[in-house]
Structure formats: structure tokens, C-alpha cells
């Protein structure tokens, strides 16, 4: 047995990058939404204001996902 090659993986490492591009913003959006739900539970009368604020948080977080998922066009 060749000790320099104990385990071997094949495939494209870029796939890991696409996974990371999805998981980071996924966690981010989850946090934004969970805090919004918590805030609406505390102060239901602020719901409409909180929902719009939440949208801005999601927009910023998902921008990273969209940019990360578009990278196959530059990293082949």
C-alpha cells in the first residue's frame, strides 16, 4: 500500500464552494427571520414595519448567495 495516498477523492472542489455559498446566507436568512418572528411576538403592532426591515436584511444576505452561486461563470 502506498502510504502517501491513503484516501483519494475525485470530483470538482468547486462544488464545495457552491455549498458554502448556499449555507452561509441560509444561516443568515434564518437568523433574520427568527429575530423578526421574535420581535413580532413581542410587539405585534409593529409587524408591518418589522416585515419591511426584514426584507432589507434578507436582500443583503441573499446577495452573497447569488454572487456565490454565479461564480461558476468565472471559476471553471
Amino acid at each position, binding site marked *: 500500500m502506498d502510504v502517501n495516498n491513503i484516501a483519494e477523492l475525485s470530483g470538482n472542489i468547486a462544488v464545495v464552494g*457552491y455549498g458554502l455559498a*448556499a449555507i452561509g446566507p441560509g444561516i443568515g*436568512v434564518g437568523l433574520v*427571520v427568527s429575530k423578526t*418572528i421574535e420581535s*413580532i411576538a413581542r410587539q405585534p*403592532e*409593529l*409587524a*408591518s*414595519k418589522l*416585515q*419591511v*426591515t*426584514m*426584507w*432589507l436584511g*434578507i*436582500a*443583503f444576505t*441573499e*446577495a452573497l*448567495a*447569488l*454572487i456565490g*452561486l*454565479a*461564480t*461558476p*461563470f*468565472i471559476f*471553471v
Partner: protein
Amino acid sequence: MSSPIEKLFATILKQGALLIALIAAAGGLIGYLVASTNGLVSALIGAAMAFVFVSMTALSVLFGGKLSLGGFFGVVLGGWIVKLLGFIALVATLRGADFIVGPVLFGSVVVSILGSLALDAVAFTKARIPTFEPK
């Protein structure tokens, strides 16, 4: 009469469409100079992709806001998953196409997304959203 939130989203969608049209024009010109017709097509596809995916979030919040709280989160989060899956499918489809110039399309997507984010942030800070809305 439309509510202040509906007015805000209408402004955001209108301004976003205008900005991305400008980016598509400028990107198309740059793409054409860099890689002729394929560059032009790539820049236009990139700007269109960015517009569809960015405006979908705003639309989901706008329409979801008319539903109950559970419906709102269902529409916004369900829309988010559908959008990301659609984006992945689109990227996988376009990636191997002959008429795509990767760097031009990527640049067009990134500039459009960042531009519309800046626009959204400005529109949001300027908006006057009442704490309480009488029915």
C-alpha cells in the same frame, strides 16, 4: 389608495428596473467591446437574471404582507428556496453554452445586485412607514 409599504415597494421595483436597464446598456456595450455579440448577450442575460431574482424578494414580501403571519413567512421563505433552486438550475444550464462569456455575465450580475442593493437601502431609509395602519 395604496399603503405606504406598497408605495415603497413600487418605488423600489421601478427604480431597480431603471438602474438594471442602465447597467444592462453599459454592460452590453462593454461586453460587445470585449467579446462582440456573445459579450453583449452575456451582459444582458446577467442583468436580466439579477433583476428577476432581486425583484422576486421584494414581490414576495409585498404579496406575503397581505397574508397572515404564517402565510407571510411561507411565501417569503418558500420563494427564497424556489428562487435559489431556479438560480442554480439556470447557472447549470447557461454554464456550458457557447454564447456565454463567463466574466462578462458574472460582472453584470454582481454590479446589478450591488447597485440594486444600494438603491433598496436608500429607498428604505427615505421611506416613511407608519407604525400603525388603520384598516
